[in-house]
Every structure is written in structure tokens, then in C-alpha cells.
């Protein structure tokens, strides 16, 4: 038991280190810009405080639109992914067909090739589909997910076959079984996948930058870059901190609220 206490103490220490950038972000964002760039590094909240940085960051862009676009994008990707990964995950978990191993490796290939690696061909593809400069265009390459298929396969495997066989005997078709029995049982796995999917698409930068032009379709990260990526001057730290806080806030809040449930979901997928 002594070892466990030492472990916990070390974890506390690590957590303190881990949270420092966030503390600085919040302190720097609230620190008034009167002192210019002097003593910006202090973590101690020494004022004077105001929300000028937040106001400047907010006015530098179209945050309500960016929030909406990003939320729509993440929701849309997740909606389609839920269908594709459940079906494929089921096939890999339950069906014995020829070439299953090979196909599975082919699926996993996508893990290694996110759109960032294949920018030009993917751009050509969405242009040919008429999806260039649209939210569905950003979403399209992500609608199939190797990671999701893998996760769902594990989840389905952890559900006892007996349930399914009982339903089949009662005359349910395979699709009915998937939809009414397995998907509800696999909810924890889907929840875990949802979190991973939403976080990664919420935070992605390079591909949305390339795939969309109109300001009407801009997402948060690309918008944020407008005040973090200034190459000729030095950074406007207070505004950068405020903008980062604005971008990160929704996910952080949601995660803090649902932390327990989410970890429980992931644990229950039987992914090990």
C-alpha cells in the first residue's frame, strides 16, 4: 500500500506540471495589456485584470460561426462514421469469411494515411465530387474510420454471442440484430469512439485549411491560426492565450463533466 501512495504522490506532481500551460493560458488571457510584454511569464495572478484580450480575440474572428461549423463538422462525421464502423466492426467481429485478415490490414492502412499525408489527391477527389469548399468536403475522407472499425470489432467481441443467437432463433434478421440488439449493447464502445473522433476533428488544422476557402465554412483551428501564426512580428501573447482558451473551452468543459462516464465507457470496450 505504501507503493500506491508513492504512485499517487508522483501522479499529483505530474498533474501539477501538466496543468501549468493551462494556468498560464488563463492568467495571461486575463492579464490586462497595460504592462505590454513585461513579466508575462509570471504564473501568479497579479493583475490588473480585464477581458480585453478575450474581446480582441473574439472580435478578430467569427467565433459563433466557427463554433457552429466545427460542431456541425464533428457531428456530421460522427453520424456517418457510426454507421460505417458499426457495420464493418460487426463483419470483422462475427463473420468468418475468406480474406478477413487481409482486408483488416487493408483497413488499418488508413490509420497511417490521414488526409494530411494525401492532401493533393484528396483535394482532387473532393473537387471531382463537387465537395471542394464545403463542410461535407472536409468530412468525406474521415467518414470511414479504421480506428473506429478496430474499436467496434473489439466491442462486439466482448458481447456474448448467446444474446445474438437467441434473437436469431426468434426470427430477427442480421440487420435487425445489429440495429436493435448489438448497437445498444455497444453503446459504451461507440461513446469512447465518439470522444476520440470528436476531439481529433475538433482539433485538426491542416486539412480544413486546404479543403475550405469561404469564410462561411471556416472552422475553429483555422480561425485561431489567424492570430497565432504571425510570422513577422512577435506573438501577441494575451490574445493568443485568450483565443486558445476560446477554442479549447467547449471540449474541456464537456470532458470535465463527463470524465467518469467516458473513462468507464472506454474501460468497458474490452480494448486492451
Amino acid at each position, binding site marked *: 500500500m505504501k507503493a500506491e501512495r508513492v504512485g499517487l504522490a508522483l501522479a499529483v506532481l505530474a*498533474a501539477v506540471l501538466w496543468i501549468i*500551460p493551462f494556468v498560464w493560458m488563463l492568467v495571461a488571457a486575463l492579464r490586462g495589456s497595460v504592462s505590454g510584454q513585461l513579466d508575462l511569464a509570471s504564473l501568479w495572478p497579479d493583475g490588473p485584470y480585464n477581458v480585453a484580450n478575450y474581446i480582441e480575440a473574439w472580435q478578430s474572428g467569427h467565433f459563433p460561426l466557427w463554433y457552429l461549423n466545427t460542431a456541425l463538422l464533428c457531428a456530421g462525421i460522427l453520424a456517418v462514421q457510426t454507421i460505417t464502423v458499426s457495420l464493418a466492426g460487426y463483419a470483422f467481429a462475427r463473420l468468418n469469411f475468406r480474406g478477413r485478415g487481409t482486408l483488416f490490414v487493408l483497413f488499418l492502412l488508413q490509420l497511417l494515411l490521414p488526409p494530411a499525408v*494525401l492532401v493533393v489527391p484528396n483535394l482532387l477527389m473532393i473537387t471531382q465530387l463537387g465537395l471542394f469548399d464545403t463542410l461535407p468536403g472536409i468530412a468525406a475522407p474521415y467518414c470511414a474510420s479504421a480506428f473506429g472499425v478496430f474499436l467496434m470489432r473489439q466491442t462486439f467481441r466482448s458481447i456474448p454471442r448467446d444474446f445474438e443467437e437467441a434473437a436469431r432463433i426468434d426470427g430477427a434478421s442480421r440487420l435487425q440484430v445489429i440495429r436493435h440488439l448489438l448497437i445498444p449493447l455497444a453503446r459504451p464502445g461507440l461513446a469512447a469512439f465518439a470522444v476520440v473522433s470528436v476531439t481529433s476533428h475538433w482539433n485538426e488544422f491542416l486539412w480544413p485549411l486546404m479543403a475550405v476557402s469561404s469564410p462561411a465554412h471556416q472552422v475553429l483551428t483555422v480561425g485561431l491560426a489567424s492570430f497565432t501564426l504571425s510570422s513577422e512580428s512577435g506573438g501577441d501573447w494575451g490574445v493568443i492565450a485568450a483565443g486558445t482558451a476560446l*477554442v479549447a473551452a467547449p471540449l474541456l468543459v464537456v470532458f*470535465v463533466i463527463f470524465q467518469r462516464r467516458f473513462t468507464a465507457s472506454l474501460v468497458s470496450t474490452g480494448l*486492451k
Partner: protein
Amino acid sequence: MLCVTLSLRPSPGLRTGVLALALLAPSLVLLSMFTYWPVIGVTLRSLVEQRFGQEPSWGFGNFARLEADPHFSKAVGNTVLYALGTILPSIALALGFALALRTQTRLVAVLRTILLMPQLIPLVAAAALFVFIFLPGGGLLDYYLAKLGRPATNWLGSPDLALGAIIAITIWKNTGYYMLFFLAGLAGIPADYTEAALIDGAGLFTRLRRITIPLLGPTFGFVTVIALVNTLVQIDHVIVMTGGGPSDSTNMILYYIYQQAEQNLDAGLASAATVVCVGGLLAISVLALRSLERGIHYES
């Protein structure tokens, strides 16, 4: 008669195959458009030699040029260092955190949340914060190191330190995420195993080495693959913070590909580098996933 029955009732194997294909079709169509087709395209392109103003021809010239390019070997070396420097500590830390934070107390919930927070912010944003943290003299790190009497350090501007700084950010960003997988893995280890070992009087490290770590084999495989992919494709912070410098000391394979494709407009070299990169990654991943598969079969 027999023939008719056969045609009306295909063999169960065939039926399963058709069903599987139907279930996989949506994914396969999407993967074909956005993964397989581009990969075939890149592979073909890598075999086309075309330099400025010349007629294209087929051959392996791009690969020869790639091999001769010192920037590429530097990028490969950096990527290997970066991968080792991030994956090993991240996994060790993630396992450590998971072991320390297995219980369900309020404090543990808070600590888990804090450790996972970096995963929830965009890498571009994290990079912007860390540019300030690493600022020589006036930045967060130097400000507090100065209180301990250490002189200002040019973290991102020294060829010896820059890669280390980039590695530190990646560890900070991803460890909490990997911790989740270890938490899931640990929860799957039956309690009686460890209890039995405890009764036998096995110490903490014996239990770790003999029971926990072997049973977590598949988790290690999975996390390693995810981490490997992350080190290769997540380079937003390199772009924002160093642009691959100083003197190429933080240049990575993917960034090299970008430089060739978009700055030097050398599609042949970029495609060849992509093929090499994907090939290597695929080989390593298949190896890692094999161990994962074995572990799962072993258990079921």
C-alpha cells in the same frame, strides 16, 4: 434437382461472404476513394521521373535522388529519434499514471482529467502556448529557471535542444490519451490474478513484471501503433515552432514531403518519400498489431 437447390441456396460460406461484403461496402467505397486510390496514385507518381522542362519517363530515379539527399536522411534520423524519444517515455509514463490512478476517488478523477486535458486542445494552439513557454529569457520556463539561478537557454534555437523541446510537447500532449488505453487494459485483468500473487508475497515490481505487463501485451501493441502514427503525422507544432530548424535539426519525414511537394514543387521526390514512409510505417504497424492479435486470441 441438386443443381437447383445449389443455385437457390448458396453455400453458407458464400452467403457469409456476400453479407460481409455488404457490411464492409460503405467503408470500402470511402477507403477506396480517399486512401487506396491516392496511395496507388502516389506509388505510380513516385516512378515517374520528371524534372523541370523535361519529358517524363518511368524509372526509379526519384528513389535514387531521395537516397542521395542529405536532408532526407537527416529527416529520417530526426523522425526515428523523435519517435523513440516520445513513444518510450509516453508509454512508460502512461502505464505509470494508469497504475497510480486505477481507483475511483474524487482526487483520481481530477488527476485523470488534468492529464488528459492537453489531448483536448488543437496542436496548433498547444504550439502557440509552448512558443511562449520556451521563449529564451522572457518565457515561462526561463523565468522560473532564472529564479533557480539558471541562465537563459535558447530552447528552440539550438540545434542540440530544439528536438528535445518538440519531444517534450508531444509527451505532454499525448501521454494522458495513452493512459486511457492502459486504464482500460488494467480493468480487464482479473483481480484474482493479482490477489493470488499478493498472497504469495510477490512485491510490487514482481507483480508488474510477472503479471500486469505480460497481460497488457496487446495494449502495448495498440498504443505503440497509435503513438507511432502520431509521431509521423502530427507535425503542426514543428511547422509553427521551428519550421524544421535550426539547420534541419527538427525536420521530420512528413515535413520533408511537404517541402518537396509544395516548396520545391518536386512531386517525384515527394511521392517517393511518401512511399518509403508509408511502407516503413506499414511494416512496423503490422509487426505491432500481430502481437496484439496474438494476445487477443490467446485470451479468448
